[in-house]
Protein backbone atom coordinates (compact mmCIF):
# COMPACT_ATOMS: atom_id res chain seq x y z
CA UNK A 1 0.00 0.00 0.00
CA UNK A 2 2.82 2.37 0.81
CA UNK A 3 4.24 2.00 -2.70
CA UNK A 4 0.87 2.94 -4.22
CA UNK A 5 0.72 6.00 -1.97
CA UNK A 6 4.18 7.14 -3.01
CA UNK A 7 3.43 6.68 -6.73
CA UNK A 8 0.14 8.56 -6.31
CA UNK A 9 1.79 11.44 -4.47
CA UNK A 10 4.48 11.73 -7.15
CA UNK A 11 1.87 11.76 -9.91
CA UNK A 12 -0.10 14.46 -8.08
CA UNK A 13 3.01 16.60 -7.70
CA UNK A 14 3.98 16.15 -11.37
CA UNK A 15 0.45 16.93 -12.50
CA UNK A 16 0.22 20.11 -10.46
CA UNK A 17 3.58 21.15 -11.89
CA UNK A 18 2.07 20.78 -15.37
CA UNK A 19 -0.98 22.78 -14.27
CA UNK A 20 1.33 25.55 -13.09
CA UNK A 21 3.34 25.43 -16.33
CA UNK A 22 0.17 25.68 -18.38
CA UNK A 23 -0.91 28.77 -16.48
CA UNK A 24 2.59 30.22 -16.91
CA UNK A 25 2.32 29.47 -20.61
CA UNK A 26 -0.84 31.46 -21.09
CA UNK A 27 0.84 34.37 -19.33
CA UNK A 28 3.95 34.29 -21.53
CA UNK A 29 2.71 33.45 -25.01
CA UNK A 30 2.34 36.32 -27.47
CA UNK A 31 -1.00 35.65 -29.13
CA UNK A 32 -4.34 33.98 -28.63
CA UNK A 33 -3.69 30.75 -30.55
CA UNK A 34 -0.39 30.04 -28.82
CA UNK A 35 -2.04 30.68 -25.49
CA UNK A 36 -4.65 28.12 -26.42
CA UNK A 37 -1.93 25.61 -27.26
CA UNK A 38 0.02 25.86 -24.03
CA UNK A 39 -2.87 26.78 -21.79
CA UNK A 40 -5.58 24.29 -22.44
CA UNK A 41 -3.46 21.35 -23.62
CA UNK A 42 -0.70 21.37 -21.01
CA UNK A 43 -3.35 21.67 -18.34
CA UNK A 44 -5.15 18.65 -19.82
CA UNK A 45 -2.15 16.45 -19.09
CA UNK A 46 -1.76 18.07 -15.67
CA UNK A 47 -5.41 17.40 -14.99
CA UNK A 48 -5.14 13.75 -16.04
CA UNK A 49 -1.97 13.10 -14.03
CA UNK A 50 -3.32 14.78 -10.91
CA UNK A 51 -6.62 12.93 -11.04
CA UNK A 52 -4.96 9.55 -11.65
CA UNK A 53 -2.59 10.20 -8.75
CA UNK A 54 -5.46 11.14 -6.46
CA UNK A 55 -7.29 8.00 -7.60
CA UNK A 56 -4.26 5.89 -6.64
CA UNK A 57 -4.31 7.45 -3.18
CA UNK A 58 -7.96 6.40 -2.77
CA UNK A 59 -8.49 3.34 -5.03
CA UNK A 60 -12.18 2.95 -4.16
CA UNK A 61 -12.99 6.21 -5.93
CA UNK A 62 -11.15 5.33 -9.13
CA UNK A 63 -14.24 4.70 -11.37
CA UNK A 64 -15.73 8.10 -10.65
CA UNK A 65 -12.37 9.82 -11.15
CA UNK A 66 -11.99 8.00 -14.48
CA UNK A 67 -15.41 9.39 -15.43
CA UNK A 68 -14.19 12.93 -14.69
CA UNK A 69 -11.10 12.32 -16.85
CA UNK A 70 -13.32 11.02 -19.66
CA UNK A 71 -15.47 14.15 -19.55
CA UNK A 72 -12.41 16.38 -19.62
CA UNK A 73 -10.97 14.45 -22.58
CA UNK A 74 -14.23 14.80 -24.52
CA UNK A 75 -15.13 18.42 -23.75
CA UNK A 76 -11.71 20.04 -23.80
CA UNK A 77 -10.82 19.68 -27.50
CA UNK A 78 -14.40 20.58 -28.41
CA UNK A 79 -14.36 23.85 -26.52
CA UNK A 80 -10.89 24.91 -27.61
CA UNK A 81 -11.63 24.10 -31.26
CA UNK A 82 -14.88 26.08 -31.10
CA UNK A 83 -13.05 29.03 -29.56
CA UNK A 84 -10.20 28.97 -32.09
CA UNK A 85 -12.61 28.73 -35.02
CA UNK A 86 -14.78 31.57 -33.76
CA UNK A 87 -11.77 33.78 -33.04
CA UNK A 88 -10.27 33.18 -36.46
CA UNK A 89 -13.60 33.89 -38.16
CA UNK A 90 -13.99 37.09 -36.15
CA UNK A 91 -10.63 38.20 -37.52
CA UNK A 92 -8.20 38.04 -34.63
CA UNK A 93 -4.74 37.98 -36.21
CA UNK A 94 -1.80 35.71 -35.49
CA UNK A 95 1.23 37.03 -33.64
CA UNK A 96 3.80 39.13 -35.46
CA UNK A 97 6.41 36.38 -35.69
CA UNK A 98 4.13 33.85 -37.33
CA UNK A 99 5.39 31.94 -40.33
CA UNK A 100 2.31 31.25 -42.42
CA UNK A 101 -1.47 31.52 -42.34
CA UNK A 102 -2.82 29.13 -44.96
CA UNK A 103 -6.40 29.57 -43.81
CA UNK A 104 -6.39 33.35 -44.28
CA UNK A 105 -4.81 32.95 -47.74
CA UNK A 106 -7.39 30.39 -48.81
CA UNK A 107 -10.21 32.53 -47.50
CA UNK A 108 -8.99 35.48 -49.52
CA UNK A 109 -8.54 33.32 -52.61
CA UNK A 110 -12.18 32.30 -52.28
CA UNK A 111 -11.40 28.62 -51.82
CA UNK A 112 -13.61 28.24 -48.78
CA UNK A 113 -16.48 30.25 -47.51
CA UNK A 114 -15.44 33.40 -45.66
CA UNK A 115 -16.15 33.85 -41.99
CA UNK A 116 -19.67 34.54 -40.92
CA UNK A 117 -20.70 38.14 -41.27
CA UNK A 118 -23.19 38.12 -38.42
CA UNK A 119 -20.63 39.46 -35.99
CA UNK A 120 -18.42 42.40 -36.74
CA UNK A 121 -15.64 42.84 -34.25
CA UNK A 122 -14.97 46.52 -34.12
CA UNK A 123 -11.28 46.41 -33.35
CA UNK A 124 -9.66 42.98 -33.61
CA UNK A 125 -6.59 42.69 -31.48
CA UNK A 126 -7.86 44.43 -28.38
CA UNK A 127 -11.07 44.85 -26.51
CA UNK A 128 -13.52 47.32 -27.94
CA UNK A 129 -13.73 49.86 -25.15
CA UNK A 130 -17.29 51.16 -25.03
CA UNK A 131 -17.92 54.77 -24.17
CA UNK A 132 -19.26 55.14 -20.68
CA UNK A 133 -22.81 56.41 -20.73
CA UNK A 134 -23.48 57.84 -17.34
Amino acid at each position, binding site marked *: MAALDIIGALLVLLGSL*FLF*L*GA*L*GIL*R*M*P*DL*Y*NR*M*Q*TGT*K*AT*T*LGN*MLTLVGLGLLEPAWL*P*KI*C*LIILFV*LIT*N*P*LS*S*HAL*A*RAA*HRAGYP*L*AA*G*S*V*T*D*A*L*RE*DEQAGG*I*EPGSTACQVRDPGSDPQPEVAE
Partner: protein
Amino acid sequence: MKRLGLFLFITAALWLFWLVFVGNLDPQEMLVGAVAAALVTLLRSGQPCLLENVNFLNPRRVFMALAYIPYMIWAIIVANLDVARRVVQPRLDINPGIVRIKTRLKNPVARMILANSITLTPGTLTVEVSGDDLYIHWIDVHAQDSEAASREIAAGFEKYLEVIFG
Protein backbone atom coordinates in the same frame (compact mmCIF):
# COMPACT_ATOMS: atom_id res chain seq x y z
CA MET B 1 -29.82 -7.91 -36.24
CA LYS B 2 -27.48 -4.96 -36.64
CA ARG B 3 -29.98 -2.57 -35.05
CA LEU B 4 -30.37 -4.95 -32.11
CA GLY B 5 -26.60 -4.97 -31.60
CA LEU B 6 -26.50 -1.19 -31.68
CA PHE B 7 -29.40 -1.02 -29.23
CA LEU B 8 -27.67 -3.36 -26.81
CA PHE B 9 -24.38 -1.46 -27.13
CA ILE B 10 -25.90 1.94 -26.35
CA THR B 11 -28.00 0.54 -23.51
CA ALA B 12 -24.96 -1.13 -21.96
CA ALA B 13 -22.93 2.07 -22.22
CA LEU B 14 -25.68 4.15 -20.58
CA TRP B 15 -26.13 1.54 -17.86
CA LEU B 16 -22.40 1.58 -17.13
CA PHE B 17 -22.56 5.39 -16.78
CA TRP B 18 -25.50 5.04 -14.40
CA LEU B 19 -23.64 2.54 -12.24
CA VAL B 20 -20.58 4.76 -11.97
CA PHE B 21 -22.75 7.76 -11.09
CA VAL B 22 -24.65 5.86 -8.40
CA GLY B 23 -21.51 4.32 -7.00
CA ASN B 24 -22.87 1.16 -5.36
CA LEU B 25 -24.08 -2.23 -6.57
CA ASP B 26 -27.48 -2.38 -4.89
CA PRO B 27 -29.76 -4.67 -7.03
CA GLN B 28 -32.58 -2.12 -6.88
CA GLU B 29 -30.39 0.62 -8.34
CA MET B 30 -29.10 -1.71 -11.03
CA LEU B 31 -32.62 -2.65 -12.10
CA VAL B 32 -33.81 0.97 -12.24
CA GLY B 33 -30.69 1.89 -14.20
CA ALA B 34 -31.24 -0.87 -16.76
CA VAL B 35 -34.87 0.18 -17.27
CA ALA B 36 -33.93 3.85 -17.61
CA ALA B 37 -31.10 3.11 -20.07
CA ALA B 38 -33.35 0.92 -22.25
CA LEU B 39 -36.08 3.59 -22.19
CA VAL B 40 -33.71 6.36 -23.25
CA THR B 41 -32.29 4.22 -26.06
CA LEU B 42 -35.81 3.35 -27.28
CA LEU B 43 -36.92 6.97 -27.25
CA ARG B 44 -34.07 8.08 -29.51
CA SER B 45 -33.92 4.97 -31.73
CA GLY B 46 -35.81 6.67 -34.57
CA GLN B 47 -33.12 9.29 -35.08
CA PRO B 48 -29.98 8.62 -37.14
CA CYS B 49 -27.01 7.42 -35.15
CA LEU B 50 -23.39 8.25 -35.92
CA LEU B 51 -22.22 4.74 -35.10
CA GLU B 52 -24.72 3.10 -37.44
CA ASN B 53 -22.43 2.06 -40.28
CA VAL B 54 -19.46 1.10 -38.13
CA ASN B 55 -18.83 -2.59 -37.64
CA PHE B 56 -17.03 -3.32 -34.40
CA LEU B 57 -17.28 -7.11 -34.47
CA ASN B 58 -14.05 -7.55 -36.42
CA PRO B 59 -11.36 -8.55 -33.84
CA ARG B 60 -8.65 -6.65 -35.72
CA ARG B 61 -10.64 -3.44 -35.37
CA VAL B 62 -11.27 -4.01 -31.68
CA PHE B 63 -7.55 -4.62 -31.17
CA MET B 64 -6.64 -1.43 -33.04
CA ALA B 65 -9.24 0.55 -31.08
CA LEU B 66 -7.70 -0.69 -27.84
CA ALA B 67 -4.18 0.01 -29.10
CA TYR B 68 -5.21 3.55 -30.03
CA ILE B 69 -5.67 4.56 -26.37
CA PRO B 70 -2.05 4.00 -25.18
CA TYR B 71 -0.76 5.49 -28.44
CA MET B 72 -2.88 8.58 -27.80
CA ILE B 73 -1.70 8.89 -24.19
CA TRP B 74 1.93 8.51 -25.26
CA ALA B 75 1.47 11.20 -27.93
CA ILE B 76 -0.07 13.54 -25.36
CA ILE B 77 2.81 13.03 -22.90
CA VAL B 78 5.57 13.53 -25.49
CA ALA B 79 3.95 16.63 -26.95
CA ASN B 80 3.32 18.05 -23.49
CA LEU B 81 6.96 17.71 -22.48
CA ASP B 82 7.88 19.52 -25.69
CA VAL B 83 5.47 22.39 -24.98
CA ALA B 84 6.55 22.60 -21.33
CA ARG B 85 10.16 22.92 -22.50
CA ARG B 86 9.15 25.80 -24.73
CA VAL B 87 7.29 27.54 -21.91
CA VAL B 88 10.10 27.50 -19.35
CA GLN B 89 12.86 28.66 -21.70
CA PRO B 90 13.83 32.25 -21.01
CA ARG B 91 13.56 33.16 -24.69
CA LEU B 92 10.34 31.95 -26.28
CA ASP B 93 11.32 29.33 -28.84
CA ILE B 94 8.17 29.32 -30.96
CA ASN B 95 7.55 29.41 -34.66
CA PRO B 96 3.77 29.50 -35.05
CA GLY B 97 1.58 29.41 -38.12
CA ILE B 98 -1.49 27.84 -39.66
CA VAL B 99 -0.89 25.02 -42.16
CA ARG B 100 -3.31 23.03 -44.30
CA ILE B 101 -3.29 19.25 -44.23
CA LYS B 102 -5.28 16.70 -46.20
CA THR B 103 -6.93 13.68 -44.68
CA ARG B 104 -7.63 10.35 -46.36
CA LEU B 105 -10.41 9.41 -43.95
CA LYS B 106 -13.95 9.35 -45.33
CA ASN B 107 -16.04 8.35 -42.31
CA PRO B 108 -17.36 11.42 -40.42
CA VAL B 109 -16.83 9.84 -37.00
CA ALA B 110 -13.25 8.99 -37.91
CA ARG B 111 -12.70 12.59 -39.03
CA MET B 112 -14.13 13.90 -35.78
CA ILE B 113 -11.83 11.66 -33.76
CA LEU B 114 -8.86 12.72 -35.91
CA ALA B 115 -9.60 16.42 -35.43
CA ASN B 116 -10.08 15.99 -31.69
CA SER B 117 -6.88 13.93 -31.39
CA ILE B 118 -4.94 16.62 -33.22
CA THR B 119 -6.40 19.23 -30.90
CA LEU B 120 -5.65 17.19 -27.81
CA THR B 121 -1.96 16.76 -28.55
CA PRO B 122 -0.29 20.04 -27.60
CA GLY B 123 1.49 21.92 -30.32
CA THR B 124 -1.26 21.37 -32.88
CA LEU B 125 -4.77 22.81 -32.84
CA THR B 126 -7.52 22.29 -35.40
CA VAL B 127 -8.86 25.70 -36.38
CA GLU B 128 -11.15 24.93 -39.31
CA VAL B 129 -12.40 21.92 -41.24
CA SER B 130 -13.46 22.33 -44.85
CA GLY B 131 -14.04 19.34 -47.10
CA ASP B 132 -10.97 17.12 -47.04
CA ASP B 133 -8.80 19.89 -45.64
CA LEU B 134 -7.98 20.51 -42.00
CA TYR B 135 -6.43 23.84 -41.04
CA ILE B 136 -4.02 23.32 -38.17
CA HIS B 137 -2.40 25.93 -35.98
CA TRP B 138 1.08 24.59 -35.34
CA ILE B 139 3.33 26.01 -32.66
CA ASP B 140 6.53 25.01 -34.46
CA VAL B 141 6.08 25.01 -38.23
CA HIS B 142 8.87 23.09 -39.91
CA ALA B 143 6.97 22.05 -43.04
CA GLN B 144 4.77 24.57 -44.81
CA ASP B 145 4.09 22.13 -47.62
CA SER B 146 0.69 20.45 -47.28
CA GLU B 147 1.99 16.92 -47.97
CA ALA B 148 4.86 17.04 -45.51
CA ALA B 149 2.70 18.63 -42.83
CA SER B 150 0.06 15.92 -43.28
CA ARG B 151 2.71 13.25 -42.91
CA GLU B 152 4.10 14.83 -39.78
CA ILE B 153 0.85 15.67 -37.97
CA ALA B 154 -1.86 13.27 -39.03
CA ALA B 155 -0.24 10.11 -40.40
CA GLY B 156 0.27 8.50 -36.99
CA PHE B 157 -3.39 8.83 -36.05
CA GLU B 158 -4.69 7.99 -39.53
CA LYS B 159 -2.84 4.66 -39.50
CA TYR B 160 -5.02 3.54 -36.59
CA LEU B 161 -8.28 5.21 -37.56
CA GLU B 162 -8.19 3.80 -41.11
CA VAL B 163 -8.22 0.27 -39.72
CA ILE B 164 -10.80 0.98 -37.02
CA PHE B 165 -13.37 2.58 -39.31
CA GLY B 166 -12.42 0.67 -42.46
